Every structure is written in structure tokens, then in C-alpha cells.
């Protein structure tokens, strides 16, 4: 791709590259570096301090629980939706695909708000559920619902273009040779899409663990009970415990970096086995 007839803009190359690097450093790299710089502002002891508090550990546990429930649910949904959309023809398919993408265009705060409107103290079903002793808002259930709504499209939109591209020939062949439906799915389909599935799960998980706006609306910020890691960062920050907030934030920044690393690895190593749109 370095043919002599490519556009060169003689003399401009260093300027454009420098501008790109300067812009990325100021806007993207600096914030990431800042998290670690601020976290170590009081030395290693200051950095470790929030990790000696039980509230931090319950936030870590809650974040793992919420992601651990939400991600598998949306993975199953993504597989089912991709199977329906790519293996069959039916009326309203593009409407269905638009609906799957819809959560991406909704504000996180609205994704939390809708659950309060349904299940909050003055929500449509709130009083009835309250009478039965069921609580959803300000509980883990509410956190999971908000997270599931926010992360619903991730797995489906990785699988749909890939399964579209692969077509149904291999599955049809397996069925003709006498394999059952589930056997075909587990022995043919799943192995064919496993890297794309992992890619989608990775992005879904990063968003599920890092989500702030939607869970903030339904959480009630009860320390030790409904406080996820991002919400814990906010609480510490608002209490002017900046070092503590940034120390806890390094966990989330680390999660983001790990996700990027794994994502780049998948794009490089399994380019042919993830959706065409992801191959740069």
C-alpha cells in the first residue's frame, strides 16, 4: 500500500502525523495517564488505602456480579437474534435489526429512567410490586436491568454480519448428513463464530463493568449494597477523596486497557474469523 501514485501531499506528511499525534495525546492519552498519576499522588500507601475498605471490595464484587449476569444474558440473546436474522427470511427483518441497535442511540440516563418509570415507587408497577414485597429499583435487579438494556446490541451486532457472510451452507450440509439441530449449532455454528462471539462478549463486558449513567439512576447509591465500581469512584470523588477515587479508577482504566489489548489481538490474529467490518 505504499505505491508512488498514492496521494502524498509533499511536505505535509510530518505536519499531519504530528497533528494527529498531538491531538490524540492531548485528548485521549493524557486522561489515561492522569488516572495513574493522580492515583499515585500520595505514594503507594495512599494508592492502596481505598483497597483496605470493605466498601471498595463490595463495589468490586457487585460489579462482577452485575456483569456476570448481564453479559451471558445478552450473549444468549445475541446468538438467538443472529440465528433468526441470518438464517431465515421474514417480514420486518430490517425493523428488527434497527430495534436491536436502538439502545446505542438512547442516553444512558434514559436507559435507567425507563426502569424507574416501570418499577419505581411511583412507577407503573411499583406500588403493586411493593405490596408483594418485591423491590427492583435500588437493588441488584435494577442494576442488572439497566446494564442489560445498555449492552443489549454488543454481541448481536458482532455476530450478525459474520453469520450473514458465512451463509448457511455448512449448517445445511450437517443437517443433510443427519445431524440434529442442536448438534449442528454446537458443532458447526458455534465453532465458526467463536472469535466473533468472544469479541462481542469482550466489548459487552467492558461496557457492563464501566457503565455509569444508567446504573446511577437505578442504584440509589447505597454504600456496600448497590454501589458498583464506577459509582464508588463518584462517591469518593464527591467526598474530595481524589486519590482514593483515582486509585479505584485505575482498576477500571486497567479493565479498559486489557479490553483494548485483547481486542487488538483478536483483530490481528483472527481477522478472518470476526466480522468483515472489523478488519482494518
Amino acid at each position: 500500500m505504499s505505491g508512488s501514485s498514492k496521494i502524498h501531499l509533499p511536505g505535509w506528511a510530518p505536519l499531519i502525523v504530528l497533528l494527529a499525534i498531538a491531538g490524540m495525546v492531548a485528548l485521549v492519552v493524557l486522561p489515561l495517564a492522569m488516572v495513574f498519576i493522580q492515583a499515585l499522588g500520595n505514594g503507594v500507601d495512599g494508592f492502596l488505602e481505598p483497597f483496605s475498605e470493605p466498601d471498595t471490595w463490595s463495589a468490586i464484587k457487585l460489579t462482577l456480579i452485575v456483569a456476570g449476569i448481564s453479559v451471558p444474558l445478552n450473549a444468549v440473546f445475541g446468538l438467538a437474534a443472529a440465528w433468526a436474522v441470518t438464517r431465515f427470511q421474514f417480514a420486518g427483518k430490517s425493523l428488527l435489526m434497527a430495534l436491536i441497535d436502538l439502545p446505542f442511540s438512547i442516553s444512558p440516563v434514559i436507559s435507567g429512567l425507563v426502569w424507574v418509570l416501570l418499577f419505581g415507587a411511583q412507577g407503573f408497577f411499583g406500588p403493586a410490586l411493593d405490596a408483594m414485597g418485591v423491590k427492583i429499583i435500588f437493588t441488584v435487579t435494577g442494576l442488572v436491568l439497566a446494564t442489560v438494556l445498555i449492552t443489549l446490541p454488543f454481541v448481536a451486532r458482532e455476530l450478525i454480519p459474520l453469520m450473514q457472510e458465512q451463509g448457511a451452507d455448512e449448517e445445511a450440509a450437517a443437517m443433510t448428513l443427519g445431524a440434529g439441530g442442536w448438534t449442528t449449532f454446537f458443532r458447526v455454528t458455534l465453532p465458526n463464530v467463536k472469535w466473533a462471539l468472544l469479541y462481542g462478549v469482550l466489548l459487552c463486558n467492558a461496557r457492563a463493568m464501566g457503565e455509569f449513567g444508567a446504573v446511577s439512576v437505578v442504584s440509589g447509591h447505597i454504600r456496600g449494597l448497590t454501589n458498583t465500581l464506577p459509582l464508588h469512584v463518584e462517591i469518593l470523588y464527591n467526598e474530595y477523596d481524589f486519590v482514593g477515587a483515582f486509585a479505584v479508577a485505575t482498576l477500571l482504566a486497567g479493565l479498559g486497557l486489557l479490553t483494548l489489548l485483547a481486542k487488538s489481538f483478536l483483530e490481528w490474529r483472527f481477522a478472518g474469523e470476526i466480522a468483515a467490518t472489523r478488519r482494518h
Partner: protein
Amino acid sequence: MTLANVRAGRRRQAGVLPGFRLSMAITLTWLSVIVLIPLAALAIRPWELGLDGVWRTLTDERVVAAFRLSFGAAAVAAAADAVLGLIVAWAIVRYRFPGRRLLDALVDLPFALPTAVAGIALTAIYAPDGPLGALLAHVGVKTAYSPLGVVIALTFIGLPFVVRAVQPVLEEVDREVEEAARTLGASDYQRIVRVVLPAILPAILAGVGLAFARAVGEYGSVIFIAGNLPMVSEIAPLLIVIKLEQYNYAGAAAVGLGMLVISFAILLVLNLLQTWLTRRSRG
């Protein structure tokens, strides 16, 4: 493919593969429970205030100011993303330099970094005592705790959308331009203005649309840097949170519904513009 082929293909797919009803049942149930029913609640709830009450909520001066800030800052940020995103995509696609792959990978960082983390980090940088904030304060520009801070956070959030939209198209244009250049001998500048820009404009617009949509609703990265002064630096999503805290469900729903309707209308216009540009650039 002839019509007969299509029909045969359809029959074969539908005839051989099982699981249509099961996969459709899971898909539709999940979409209904998680997306459709909750959004229906959002669409219904405001109207208990009456048409009149919804109108009064949305024209309240604090709400109008918040809408103006959310949509205005999102538009400015999306425009900034268009410029910076094009420069970054151009550098990554066109040039070979040390650290190019790292730069490429870092483009996705705003996607991967949780918004609350980005929010406090940006605040630390642009606060009056932060490294860049102090520099800018020195020349009299206030960034954190002002609308400019909101724009900075939204530009951060939206950048990957533009880069990732432009990148593949730019790579594609490269090959086509290579062919054309061989036969025509146009100058670099002519080729950029006449060939490359028209070809990537729809992609830029698509990226800008995504960045704008994300920015309008963004919450976590903004609330720390904004300062949240009513009428000045208070974004619309924060107003929803405030109304909910006052148990004003209908008011919160009205603001949310208003946001959704306006941003879908803007996205529709952008989409039409993009379709028109694509058609035009193909002649």
C-alpha cells in the same frame, strides 16, 4: 442471481434449518422486555401532565437552557471530531510512522475507558490547577466548570466514531485514486478536493452522526467537568436525574422523551443528507 435462485435458496434455508421459532421467540421476548416495554413507559408517562403540562415542562427556561447546552455542545464536539478524526484517520491510513499501530489501537480508548473515569481524569487535566487547565487559564480561557469543559468531554467521547467511520472508506479510496491517477495525471490537491473528499464525505457525516447521538445523551464523562451550574453548564440528562430525585417522574420522562424525539429528528436529517451525498459522489 435470478428470482428462481433466490426462491430456491429461501426454501432450502427455511426448509432445512430448524430453530426459527425458538430463536425468534427468544429475540422478540428479550427485545420486548428490555427495550420496547420500557420505552413505551417513557412514551406514555409524560402525558399525565396533559399536553399543556408537557409543553410547560419543555419550555421551562432551565430545561431550554439544558437542551441548548446538550445539543449545542454535542454539535460543536461532533464538528471538532470531524476535523480531528479526519486528521487521525488520514495519518493512520496514509503514512507509515513509528507508533502508528499504537495510535490506531488508542483510537478506541474512549470506547473502552469507563465514562466516569474519563470524567474525573478530564476534570483533573482541565481544572484551573490541572496541567492544561492552568495553561489555558493563563491566557484567560476557562475550560473546566464551563460549557467549554462540556465540549471537551463530548469531543473525547465522540472521536472514535469518526475515525472508525472514515478509516475503511479512506483505504478504499486509496486504491481507486491510484488507478485514476495513473491515467489522468491530476495534481495531489485536485485529487483530494475532487476525488477523495467527495468520496469520504458520507463516511465523515456518518461518523459525525454517531458521535453527535452519543454526545447528546452522554452523562458520566460530562458531569464532573461541567460544574453543573443551572442555566449555564447543566446538561439535559442531569436534569432528568434531578427531576427523578424530586420524584417528578412525569417531568423526567417529558425531558427524556423530548431529548429522544429531537435527536432522532436530527439523525434522520443527517441520514438523508448522507444518502444524498453518497448518491451524488457516485454520479
